[in-house]
């Protein structure tokens, strides 16, 4: 890799960045609200159910960081794509996009006017895929020794979101049953 590609091209935090982030948080809260009922459902002791709306909220800031990272001035796309923060946001966005395409196909084939709660039902199916994509990409970057974090606020924010997605993967159904077991037994002994 050339030296110029490694160099950090920092961008100051501007009003536009703040506006995009505020809008993203608002969008994330609106998305999270659509499935907040899941947290009160019978599986409330399972971290997968109780945190699904928080993961939906994460989608808003993730998309925003991806957009902010693509605004100029920025390093070349080939450098940017392998930065862990941006890679995490890109992975979550791509996984959502692929699932959204199939979900849109399903809705179109099954009479869209009769479909209820489209946005919330989409996330119930999609959330595990998004949570899984980020650890897979980070594992790929780590194993290939391509983990080159950048000291800019955008990449740091992206890494923070990436960590939250990894935590989401750990509380999701497949790996989160351990946590479910612990929380359920805690509830049984302390109720």
């Amino acid at each position, binding site marked *: 890799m050339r030296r110029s590609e490694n160099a950090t091209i920092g961008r100051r935090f501007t009003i536009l960045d703040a506006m995009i982030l505020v809008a993203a948080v608002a969008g994330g809260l609106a998305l999270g609200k659509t499935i907040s009922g899941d947290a009160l459902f019978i599986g409330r002791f399972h971290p997968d159910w109780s945190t699904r709306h928080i993961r939906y909220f994460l989608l808003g800031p993730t998309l925003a960081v991806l957009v902010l990272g693509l605004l100029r001035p920025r390093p070349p796309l080939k450098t940017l794509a392998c930065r862990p923060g941006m890679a995490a946001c890109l992975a979550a966005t791509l996984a959502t996009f692929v699932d959204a395409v199939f979900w849109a196909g399903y809705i179109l084939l099954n009479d869209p006017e009769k479909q209820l709660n489209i946005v919330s039902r989409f996330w119930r199916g999609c959330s595990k895929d998004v949570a899984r994509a980020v650890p897979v990409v980070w594992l790929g970057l780590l194993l290939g*020794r391509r983990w080159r974090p950048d000291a800019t606020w955008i990449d740091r924010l992206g890494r923070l979101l990436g960590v939250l997605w990894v935590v989401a993967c750990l509380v999701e159904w497949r790996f989160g049953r351990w946590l479910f077991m612990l929380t359920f037994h805690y509830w049984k002994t302390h109720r």
Partner: protein
Amino acid sequence: MTREPLLPGLGIVDLTIIGVMTCLGVYVAFLAPKKLESALGLQDSMSMHEANIKAAEMRRPKVEPSRFDRLKRAREDVLQVVEPILAFLSLGAGLATFRRPSAWSKRALRRRGILTLAVVTLFFLTALSNEFILRHFDINTSGVGLNPISALWGELTAEIGLGVLVLWVILLLGRRWSGAADWHDRVGRTVGWLLILDGLCGSRLSQLLY
């Protein structure tokens, strides 16, 4: 972009590992899920699933299945055979590759196929051990049931298939799309393509068909 081979060619031990794992995949694919559970000492997840299917069939009005329905059924049958074989083939290829210390080097892991094999092998090992412990030791006794074991292979291949697709897109965007002319890398790339195909045409396509 394909570079010079890094790892030695296909040896008899590699062939044996891949062959044994593929045979294991074929065996698991054709073994009844209930028998697999009892052979491994796992919690019964199939009885409730079969009862649910039977109840759904009782409720459904009796109509002659159309040609499209028969095609969907055939596709499901094919996937139920292919998905365990694909999972065990990936594991076998991963074990055959990573038994060599040179496969863990930076140069080797920068090749797309070998990196894919590493990620896929780690995912399958983690996910299968997690499932085995939870199902074997009857840990999940809380009332929220286990998914049927017959659906496990489809879920795993679909999840990692999308992960591989996303990883490859990021490598492509980052212009790290390199491959090597050795069989390890070729097998890794083939496994990657098969998993992506299964990820898109398996459970996600099922969503459109039903």
